[in-house]
């Protein structure tokens, strides 16, 4: 079947195309070159100036796994008041900040997203995470395996293991847990909390292993680089949410020693201690450091006002944050000598000084970062706000007068402490297409998506231009997934299921001997049952894998 999208304005930053009118041809789920000669077009969509982008990619969204399910339980009260009725196509569901898996898939697709990544997949909880994502229809998914507070790695570091052995363990973890990247959360800190340490700065030691976050960042960022894994180490820095933590964030950048790293939800890590409330924006310092160091990328984790639930692997900091829980209930877990988690419901209020300044800090970071290829649009769903608020966030970035109207309503003291009103920048559609399509595909090593050239998956979103950019991004005119029309005028047309995106770096299988001894001695599960096979992914779990290439391993 040959499909033609005729006369759309194409935004394809991967190929430098900025609003040029072009036709797109689709066959067998992929974009093809314009056929030569006369070919029968089976279905044509006349787009006359409609905006065409690749399907959007969310590189950091908590959509599946044990802690998300705990958050759903903690938010039962909200789910009661927000049911999603069944339709002829859709299963029913519920919840706003922590929706069920089916609703999350539908809603992402309705907003033009076609690929999403769960950023904190605990290897010990990998099956649940993949099963939840398999039950998230419409989307291709993937996960970043959490390392850096697991006792096995910390023991290796404490024993001064060779870097090549660490590389083998990192690669083994990617294979065993069927992941595409490695995430580190409060490096060594989740582990230190189990030994009753309550904070851990970049150069402080985990008291049991005598290993610092700096050691962990250095070794893991180097491992990712040497293994040829495309996505840089995905880092949730030390001291999340602590005033003055921008210094830890700068130290973390330094700890990578020039290896690529991605700093996630950096808004929560860009706080100073100035002013009468000893809480201030350090967005300028952070943006300057990222602008200067080309091996560093970041996503923002923008907060938007309203009720949400914060879900994190950072049990140490979430334990401290429980004092701010709204409503007053919270969960903390220590998990399997692997990691941990903490869930704290939050209500961000525009009249609250701290919340209002957090909002401004996120926007400052967006507007001060000079390279849209190295900054990504996220709310750290649902931690800063639910993903459903992306269209609103895009408007804040693209529409200065709208932004200033919003700024007028926030806590007056916070307003005095932000430079937001001096920032004139308005993001262009081209830059939004970079941040939400081309750049995430590039930084994850996904050559088959995020662009609109020959051989790309026909994951395509078409928008009807409107003055209100929020309305435009909320309801795309068409969304195609692998060439199939799945959404029309913001309404679901067809249910499809995605695949799990993974990478497979080379490693020396003899690492399993050491791991097997460790598992038999300390774990409550066998190594053979810890690993997830491709068959299990496809059949039992229900999401077949799609392998993306790594570069050659260099050490």
């Amino acid at each position, binding site marked *: 079947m040959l499909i033609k999208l005729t006369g759309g304005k194409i935004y394809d930053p991967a190929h430098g195309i900025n609003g040029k009118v072009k036709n797109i041809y689709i066959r067998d789920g992929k974009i093809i070159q314009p056929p030569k000669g006369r070919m029968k077009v089976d279905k044509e969509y006349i787009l006359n100036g409609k905006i065409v982008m690749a399907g959007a990619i969310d590189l950091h969204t908590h959509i*599946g796994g*044990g802690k*998300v*399910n*705990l958050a*759903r*339980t*903690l938010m*039962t*009260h909200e*789910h*009661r008041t927000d*049911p*999603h*009725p*069944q339709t002829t196509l859709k*299963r*029913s*569901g*519920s*919840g706003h900040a*922590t929706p*069920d*898996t*089916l*609703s999350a898939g539908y809603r992402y697709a309705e907003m033009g997203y076609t690929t999403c990544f769960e950023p904190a997949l*605990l290897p*010990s*909880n990998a*099956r*649940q995470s993949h*099963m*939840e994502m398999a*039950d998230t229809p419409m989307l291709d998914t993937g996960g970043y395996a959490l390392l850096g507070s697991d*006792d096995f790695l910390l023991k290796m570091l404490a024993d001064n293991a060779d870097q090549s052995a660490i590389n083998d363990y990192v690669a083994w973890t990617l294979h065993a847990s069927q992941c595409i990247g490695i995430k580190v959360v409060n490096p060594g800190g989740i582990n230190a*909390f*189990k*030994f*009753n340490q309550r904070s851990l700065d970049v150069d402080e030691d985990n008291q049991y292993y005598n290993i610092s976050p700096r050691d962990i960042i250095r070794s893991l960022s180097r491992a990712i680089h040497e293994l040829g894994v495309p996505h840089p180490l995905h880092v949730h820095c030390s001291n999340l949410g602590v005033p003055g933590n921008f210094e830890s964030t700068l130290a973390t950048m330094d700890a990578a020693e020039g290896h690529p790293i991605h700093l996630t939800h950096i808004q929560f890590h860009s706080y100073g201690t100035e002013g009468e409330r000893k809480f201030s924006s350090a967005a300028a310092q952070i943006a300057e450091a990222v602008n200067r160091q080309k091996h560093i990328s970041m996503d923002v984790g923008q907060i938007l006002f309203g009720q949400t639930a914060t879900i994190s692997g950072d049990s140490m900091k979430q*334990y401290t944050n429980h004092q701010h829980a709204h409503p007053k*209930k*919270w*969960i*903390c*877990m*220590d*998990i*399997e*000598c*692997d990691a941990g988690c903490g*869930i704290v419901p939050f209500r961000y209020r525009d009249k609250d000084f701290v919340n209002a300044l957090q909002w401004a800090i996120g926007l400052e970071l967006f507007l001060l970062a000079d390279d849209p290829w190295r900054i990504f649009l996220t709310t750290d769903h649902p931690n800063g706000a639910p993903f459903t608020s992306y269209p609103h966030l895009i408007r804040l970035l693209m529409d200065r007068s709208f932004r200033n109207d919003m700024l007028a309503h926030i806590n007056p003291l916070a307003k005095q402490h932000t430079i937001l009103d001096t920032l004139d920048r308005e993001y262009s559609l081209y830059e939004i297409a970079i941040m939400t399509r081309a750049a995430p595909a590039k930084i994850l090593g996904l050559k088959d998506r995020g662009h609109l050239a020959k051989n790309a998956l026909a994951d395509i979103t078409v928008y009807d231009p409107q003055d209100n950019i929020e309305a435009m991004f909320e309801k795309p005119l068409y969304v195609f997934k692998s060439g199939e029309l799945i959404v029309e005028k913001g309404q679901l047309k067809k249910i499809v299921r995605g695949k799990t995106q993974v990478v497979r770096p080379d490693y020396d299988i003899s690492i399993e001997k050491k791991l097997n001894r460790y598992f038999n001695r*300390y*774990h*409550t*599960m066998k190594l*053979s*049952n810890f690993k997830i096979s491709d068959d*299990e992914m496809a059949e*039992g*779990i229900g999401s077949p894998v799609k392998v993306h290439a790594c570069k050659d391993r260099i050490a």
Partner: protein
Amino acid sequence: MTFKNITCPFCGLACDDLTVSAKQNKLDILAGQCTLNRAGFNQALWEKTSTAMMQGKEIAHATAIDKAASLLKKSEAPLIGGLITDVNGVRTAMALADACGAVIDHQDSQAIFRNTRVLQDTGWMTTTLTEVRNRADLVIMIGSQVLDDYPRFFERIIQPKPQFRKKPRQIILLGSWDGRKIPAELKGDNTTVIKTPMESVAEVIAALRATLAERVLDNNQFGGMNSSAIQELAFQLKESQYSVFTWSAKEFDMPHSELVIEQLVELIKDLNTTTRSSGLPLGGSNGSISANQVCTWQSGIPLRSSFAQGQPQHDALLFDSQRLLKNAEADLLLWVSSLRSDQPPPDTDIPTIAIGHPATQFKRLPEIFIPVGIPGIDHTGHTFRMDGVVTLPLHKLRETSLLSAADVLSQLTARIS
């Protein structure tokens, strides 16, 4: 054929270190045997049917699906219960519940909700099996049913030397140990038994909380402990580096027991202001954690939910399956129990469709019985462990002509949609 590292699906520990020798009519557990898995594997050998039945008479599979689908379509208040199955059994049961507007619940939800209501209302601090095994220097085990319900808990979790502690682990057994034998592996200097009826556990916990908060106690006896014993225990908890409280909600069989669990959860939170402490709720047998997890991720709300209004609605009292059956508020029961032959549908007057273990011992013949394979013996699958974190793969040990519960439930959903 001999299989190694096989997962046992018969309790919430989900031990995955079994060695099983499997022939068509014989399943021998060569390593990792316990009373529960012995029984579970034995049931798989009992005389069984592989043919669907209508009121005890054999019928073709396709006819059984047709009849079951028409009963579901006709029903105005269907109830999907039991859910004693694997993860994919529950995933497909959820799709069916949504398609036919059913209430969905698990057989053991009474115990599940003693915990879930606390989790919903206050949250908690908990831990997992590997953490307890390696980190806990003090384990306070509330109740004594652990011996029957999780036979290998001591061997696999408590006995091994903790990785991170130099001194031996201290064990406190708090509960009604009258007439019960303390397990041999726990007899020793490191175990203390505090005999207290389950009804008095709340008193002990409250006294501990008050003592930790430096309040003066105006009583001298708390569930059989005097105030100096309480003070000693409070001191021990404060001094320990990682204490763990275990409890089985099933054992708190008394009105408003969720309030006892809430007290316990708050005690753990109190202790964490200065040291580390965690809870480990024992549960997950009969696939109950699997059922609650899947229900929560697919609908956003836990078990005891209804899809009758075309959208999920959760009410822990209203949609309790036992209550619905007792008060005749359901007009059709679809019972899923593929793991166990001794968990048949409850005796009820309403028409019943059973999707179950091939050797199910019925109290009353159901209208429709579709026998299915046993997860972890006849087909692969998954089961959640008690800690709700680890999902173990279940293995296929023998050939069978039987479909899985998930296959049959999917056929039913396709048939009525």
